[in-house]
């Protein structure tokens, strides 16, 4: 058996995984567009009432009841220190599967709106640029240029890890935002 065709020097384990890992859900936060690999996403639901948990950082909005399952909800805009805004009817919650050492865990991410599902092939992805600060930009898998626009691809296991969520201060994605 020949190894599956590879692109960009990366060996993909199976064809289906390669195809689904190419597919990204694109959503917006503020003026920027982000992407999450589709196979990480369980579903997208409309904004609903979130039960607040006391003494949590502002970006941890609380918990929601997803058909009997109680899952935490994070406001990505606040997490990445975008200016605060009102929720609109475009606002939605993306239910994401994140991997933890103890198994799969569901987390809801509040996004300002879902745009589309894009197939982004590996050669269109660039490593996150060096902004001169030395440290790599956290939570980013890479950046994709699609039709002249840049989409930021999130490393969801990093974004939603318990430690990252509990960090009290919000972390701007870019160092030169101001």
């Amino acid at each position: 058996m020949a190894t599956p065709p590879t692109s960009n020097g990366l060996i993909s384990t199976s064809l289906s995984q390669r195809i689904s890992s190419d597919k990204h859900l694109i959503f917006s936060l503020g003026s920027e567009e982000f992407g999450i690999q589709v196979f990480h996403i369980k579903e997208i639901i409309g904004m609903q009432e979130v039960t607040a948990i006391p003494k949590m950082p502002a970006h941890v909005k609380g918990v929601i009841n997803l058909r009997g399952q109680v899952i935490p909800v994070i406001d990505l805009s606040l997490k990445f220190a975008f200016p605060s805004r009102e929720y609109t009817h475009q606002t939605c919650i993306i239910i994401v599967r994140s991997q933890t050492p103890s198994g799969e865990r569901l987390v809801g991410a509040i996004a300002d709106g879902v745009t589309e599902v894009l197939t982004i092939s590996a050669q269109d992805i660039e490593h996150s640029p060096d902004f001169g600060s030395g440290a790599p930009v956290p939570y980013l898998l890479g950046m994709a240029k699609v039709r002249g626009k840049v989409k930021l691809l999130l490393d969801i296991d990093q974004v939603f890890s318990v430690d990252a969520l509990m960090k009290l201060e919000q972390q701007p994605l870019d160092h030169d935002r101001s």
Partner: protein
Amino acid sequence: MMSLMTEASAGNNAIERTVDDFALQAVVSDAEVLTIEDLSSVSFTEDETRFITARMQSIVQAQVSCEAECGGEPARAETPATLVFEEDPEMLAGFVLESDEHLISIEEQILMLEKDPSLIDTIHAVFRSFHTIKGLAGFLGLSGVQAVAHEVETLLDHARNLRISITPEIVDLVLDSSEYLKREVALVRAKISGAPLPSVCDNTVLLRTLSKATANAVYGRLHPFQEQTVHDQTPAAIVEPGETESVPSIATLTTPAREVAQIDEFASLTQPSQTAALQAPEAVPAARKLIRSEMASASIRVETSKLDRLMDMVGEMVIAQSILSNSPRLTAHGNARLAGEMSRLARITGEVQRCAMSMRMMPIGPLFQKNAKIVRDLSRRNGKQVSLELSGEATELDKTIAEELSDPLLHMIRNALDHGIEPPEERIAAGKAPVASLCLSAEHQAGKIVISISDDGRGLDPQRILNKAIQKGLIDEGTQLAQEEIFKLIFAPGFSTAEKITDISGRGVGMDVVRKHVETLRGRIEIKSELGKGTTFFIHLPLTLAIIEGLVIVVGQHRYIIPVFSVREMFRPTKDMYFTVQGHEEMILMRGELLPLIRLHKRFDLEPRTEDICQGLLVVCEFSEKQFCLFVDDLLGRQEIVIKSLDDTFKSTMGLAGCAILGDGGIGLILDVAGIFHSASERKEIAAA
């Protein structure tokens, strides 16, 4: 067929030797004798099976007639100490399950017999249990188990035919044997689970004692039982043609072939309970089906995690149903038919919930039984005479609770035996009957289960407890305590009133551990005691852990649930009850008691509707003997809730025990009152730092 022949010849030697006893060699040709073991490992075509079966039947018929001439003398041999058994985990698991049940009932019944040796039905029951174990063990080739069970059976056979009576020695022997069988079963269990194997127990002494006892008991009338054990390297079941047997000896048939032919006769001869694990000629597949169907009729084993999931989902279903039936859009319609359908749905979901709940429930009887033997052993060792009475054994409670309860119950019984109950002389001197009574009972009381452990011994001496507590520095001298509070001191860590430390109790950990255990089960302990008359401990427990009752309270926009078991009372305070301490700490004076006041909105940084305590509500919370008042805006109601755990993200939050879906589909956070109380001190530390 070639491979079959070679396979078959392996097991042949063993068969041949047994068959030898019956002088049947001539009839048996090499290829035609197959053990059940062989059958399980070789695959046959249907034709081959039919052929073999037919041949075997003819052999067996010859054997039967032959054996009739020999007078059915059983095979004799020493029992090998090693374990030889079939490697079928499922069947072994079935054996373990069934043997466990039988061993429990054996213990229970033999102890009943000790009290009243004339209970013939009980002798029969014990006999049958041993017989079943023997049959199962025989089928699986557990020769050690089989031999011991057989010997006990022989002994009990005399008893049930009223040739001997049940003496304490016999009771001891039977208990020793059941102890041995338990160890053997544990060995099998370890083998299935792949756990390290405990050492194989030696049964030669036990076997010898047993057969000697049999011989002695019947004055040598039945000498052949000396050293008589069933030995077989092949997995052979033992067929005992039931009560119709006129010869006092037990006919033991040791070749599988024989048993194969006997099956039809056997079925008509034996009582249903004795059918154990006996096999049809189609051998193994049918046999397995038989064992399985027997198990299935009694119980099905389901993983607890599956049951928990079911419970969870049923809980959700009930809530979803109530949301639906309360939905204004549906009720506003005024559609009678819809309303009818809705109430039907409500009934069904209610029924499903009850069913699901009952699946986790088990009677408390076995838990009590487990302690019966301990009471017997301990009272003997301490030279005390105790009669144990059980009541309410059929009371059902959640399996998890029953399992968790086992240790505390044991501790309390040991305590009662060690501290509570006096030696016979002391009892006579006090004008009591020399035999003390220890009573274990269980009953349902208002949606809770109450287990009581009651003895008629010394009773608790409040003065002695008080002195001890002062001596140990648990309380200050001169502290005024009510009798009830004094009794509760025995649950304090490090408290022990026993003058000497025995190996049973007296290390001062017992009651402390007991209380912790019971509290994790969301229960509480109550003590009633009268000096010189006895002590009763009441353990109050919830019926299940999956569902709790909660008070839904509100602070500002937020709803929280306080578990009812941690609430003592709630009230709207008046101004004159409120006091401040140095301007920042707050206290409530209630019926002469000063309780600290904690404002939930301050703890959780919430925006309350009111800051004025007279406008809000005070909930008196308690945990491990501590009490405080929690200030909240209002009470919304009381609700049964299914506890869900919160995501790891929130594990650092003090004061939350989990969450639950409320009647309208929203989420309510469950408060952990102890956590809320302690988060106060944590705050001060942070502020001080």
